[in-house]
């Protein structure tokens, strides 16, 4: 029942242009500007520069700034701005094929490595032969046989079986993974495509893993 409800909701989200924000409840005013300024200063002062580090990662784009300002509960107008700005970032694979190879998608869904930096314990390059992992199991269930799944995001078990693989559904799933904030402002899910964690072709492989009737997700 719950899964069905989520499915319907997701489709509604996919098909309506209205703004949606991740946070529930009342929108709060931003924190004290003096404290906020100190927080920004602390970030600037607290990370090590030099070899193996990358201080450019501390930059927040306009969307993160807005989410931080409102603690992930932006008012409707700001949420709509975020949705529009993030939607404009979405890129599609060459040739436009949004359903790729589910078997590769399965690997990417589970793989958790990539992008860890610093001098203490950076990711070893040899573990990243195919690029970064998507680390989806950190937050979402999928294959009914996998018990080590996180719960920050909704369960995606039987995702395709419950919702079908219509053209809209394929497009929604691809776009949602590429940039969840195109639909849900300040979503807690990383902007996988936009932030360069996954390439468009890899996202298409994961879409196939979630939607294909052959995939274990839908067994």
């Amino acid at each position, binding site marked *: 029942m719950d899964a069905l409800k989520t499915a319907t909701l997701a489709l509604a989200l996919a098909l309506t242009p209205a703004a949606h924000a991740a946070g529930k409840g009342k929108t709060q005013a931003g*924190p*004290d500007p003096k*404290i*906020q300024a*100190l*927080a920004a*200063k*602390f*970030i600037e*002062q*607290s*990370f*090590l*520069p030099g070899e193996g*580090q*990358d*201080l450019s*990662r*501390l930059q*927040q784009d306009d969307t*993160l700034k807005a*989410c*931080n300002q409102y*603690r*992930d509960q932006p008012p409707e107008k700001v949420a709509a701005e975020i949705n529009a700005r993030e939607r404009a970032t979405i890129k599609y694979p060459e040739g436009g094929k949004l359903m790729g190879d589910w078997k590769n998608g399965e690997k990417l869904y589970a793989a958790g490595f990539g*992008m*860890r*930096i*610093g*001098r*203490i*314990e950076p990711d070893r390059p040899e573990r990243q032969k195919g690029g970064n992992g998507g680390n989806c*199991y*950190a*937050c979402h269930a999928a294959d009914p046989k996998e*018990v*080590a*799944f*996180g*719960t*920050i995001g909704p369960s995606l078990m039987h995702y395709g079986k419950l919702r079908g693989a219509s053209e809209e559904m394929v497009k929604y799933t691809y776009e949602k993974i590429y940039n969840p904030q195109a639909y849900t402002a300040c979503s*807690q*899910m*990383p*902007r996988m495509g936009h*932030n*360069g*964690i996954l390439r468009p072709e890899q996202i298409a492989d994961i879409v196939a893993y979630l939607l294909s009737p052959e995939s274990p997700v839908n067994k």
Partner: protein
Amino acid sequence: MRGALSCRQLAGVVLLAPALALGQELKTADEYRAALQDKFANPGNLVVERGERLFKEKRGPKNASLEQCDFGKGPGVLKGAFAELPRYFKDTDRVEDLESRLLTCMVRLQGFTPEELKKKLFADQRANEPNTDLEALAAYVAVQSDGMKLNPPMKHPKEREMRAVGEVLFHTRIGPMDFSCSTCHGQDGKRIRLQELGNYAGNRADAQKTMRTWPTYRVSHGLLRNMQHRLWDCMWQMRLPDVDYGSPMVVALISYLADRGRGAVLDIPGIKR
């Protein structure tokens, strides 16, 4: 206690071995704790002992011990000091947590330079390294507050400011994963894979449960870890550059967490996955 291991601790370590071998099957922190009812069996005690020796030894260019270090309750008073950290220190005119205060004393009393002290902050579990001197020292000081209630002062305006900044930082999304601390620690009953996450922002009991057990022996590392390491670890998972030891961001976050955990009865060294 003095220098050599007590019989009780040696016995504890031997008794613990089978429990640790079961490590993979014991999944939650609670299960670990249940397996380790005898506090003396915590292998972290060996590190604490080493910390005590190092603390009392004359070291550094000034050939001095740390016995006159003031952790907030007067020079040389260790009992209950950690339970009231972070706090504002007049002599440095800033808020310091346990580990940053330790650095201050090692520089001022013993004459070390911050650069040499920070050269190796954490032992590398992958290389089977033993705990660093800093880790051992911090653990020794912390354990002198075992059984006491966590009670960071929050009286001085700078203490309150630090906590407020910590709260903002806790909710600040930053880095290529768009994570903030509250992404993972901002809702009740969530987990990453199988690891349970506390809701520190919304649930005082979760903050207390966590804050009462640090420094902690991490079975998966085979090492005693402190809060500086835990927060470095979470920020590493956020794909950020290495956060500096005792940096304002870490002290602010620890101030926030310690205030959220206020009232928890310390049970240290803790033990967890």
